[in-house]
């Protein structure tokens, strides 16, 4: 693990539970900065639970999460969005709320910030939706707008829980490109994935959750797999090829 001493997110012998039910035990790892780490596993394997713990929403039974990324620079797009889509807000306003780390609750947005917001929307191909209410967006458009908010936030740690579910292929292509750019800029990205194609295109590291344990596997070990996406976690062996 020595080569990863600069990592800004470390998991130390994590034991996580939902209520009284243990979900994960002995999960270790250093999440590589500037890399995209994929979390894979069957439904109920503990992917969302691990993300909750990393975001500080779930207290570990034992072990710890060490994260040196400032809280305001962490972004989380959970599977079940807390986002109220009936709220009267436009796409541009949503993207602009990502200015919170620099502007907080009081400081007014200046022209340069609005310009930055517009550039981000252009990058994501949603400029034409700037004034559209959130409630009138498709799943893919909404996901792009949310990624826009994380770009505005200048997130240094980004956690995405199945971001490509119910999303059109154009959006998937754009998001994969943007996530790769973010990683290249040094953002630490953890992403829950089910689809083998997405995994191949995105993952630099893979943490596989199975049977209550985490196991690091090399993405190359997944390349020859042709099994259906949902079955992937069970078809892999116990190779410890990742960070440890």
């Amino acid at each position, binding site marked *: 693990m020595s080569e990863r001493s600069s990592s800004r997110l470390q998991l130390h012998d994590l034991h996580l539970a939902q209520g009284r039910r243990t979900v994960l035990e002995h999960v270790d790892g250093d999440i590589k900065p500037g890399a995209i780490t994929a979390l894979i596993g069957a439904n109920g394997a503990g992917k969302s639970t691990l993300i909750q713990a990393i975001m500080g929403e779930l207290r570990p039974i034992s072990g710890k999460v060490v994260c040196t990324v400032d*809280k305001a620079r962490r*972004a*989380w797009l*959970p599977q079940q969005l807390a986002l109220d889509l009936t*709220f*009267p*807000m436009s796409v541009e306003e949503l993207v602009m*709320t990502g200015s919170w780390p620099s502007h907080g*609750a009081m400081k007014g947005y200046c022209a340069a910030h609005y310009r930055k917001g517009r550039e981000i929307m252009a990058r994501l191909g949603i400029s034409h939706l700037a004034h559209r*209410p959130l409630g009138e967006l498709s799943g893919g458009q909404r996901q792009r707008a949310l990624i826009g908010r994380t770009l505005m936030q200048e997130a240094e740690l980004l956690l995405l829980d199945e971001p490509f579910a119910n999303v059109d292929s154009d959006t998937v292509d754009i998001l994969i490109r943007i996530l790769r750019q973010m990683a290249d800029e040094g953002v630490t990205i953890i992403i829950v994935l089910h689809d083998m194609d997405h995994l191949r295109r995105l993952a630099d590291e893979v943490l596989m959750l199975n049977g209550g344990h985490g196991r690091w596997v090399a993405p190359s070990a997944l390349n020859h797999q042709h099994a259906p996406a949902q079955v992937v976690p069970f078809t892999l062996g116990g190779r410890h090829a990742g960070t440890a």
Partner: protein
Amino acid sequence: MLALLDAWFIAPFDYGFMRRAVVGGLALSLAAPPLGVFLVLRGMSLIGDAMAHAILPGVALGFLLAGFSLPVMSVGGVLFGVLVALLAGAVSKMGGQREDAAMASFFIISLAAGVMLISMGGSSVDLTHVLFGSILAINSTALLLIASISTLIVITLAIIFRALVVECLDPLFLRGQSSRSGWVHSVFLGLLVLNLTAGFQTLGTLMAVGLMMLPATAARFWSKRLEGLIGIAVVLAMLASTGGLLLSFHLDTPSGPSIILLAGVAYLLSALFGRYHSLAAKLRRKTTPLALEQSH
């Protein structure tokens, strides 16, 4: 014609009590509707009603201690409102019950306790006065108190506006951004209690919530923008409070219910003829859906 307009709209304000009443009503109309808009957007429309009942025992205790003194009754109302909000929050956290369920339990207890307390120490007239208010009996001290509370609410709302919007839209995001995000909800509940306390003198504890909620729910039929919702709600509340007072003056009807009923008429008309989601909008949509879609 001019004489008729003067008799209906100007002459009533020759009386000092009407001038004080209209200023009190306008001050409340500036502060209450924005709170109502946020309550509606947060899906907490009934919380306002619950809080209105929650302040009653405090108001009643103030009445028992100091007679019909608005400052003492207001302090009692604020203290009790905050106490009930805290208790409801604690019970919901302890038992995993939703906050609205705990609040519903506490507010009905509060209503019974308040009515009991007032009945023990006063007459049925006093009870009616507290429950339904008497805007025409506002004196200068009460007016000053109402105006001060309304000003405080508007300024505080301006300060917490962005945090409140982000909390309504995506509480998880705000929690991630600030470890003190919980204060937004607490401050908002505090403003709610303050507003209801200011409103009970003019409209009564049971009616005060009307000026908060009805303009806000009516505005939903006219705008899809937050600024629009707040602006329209404030204008509707101002029209209802002033119009209701004039109706009360000319027709000799009770002032509080006149104001709230007028706001109710605005709500019903909005539901029928409003720009969005109204009956008329639905009928229009059936004939020209594409044009309507494009106009969005």
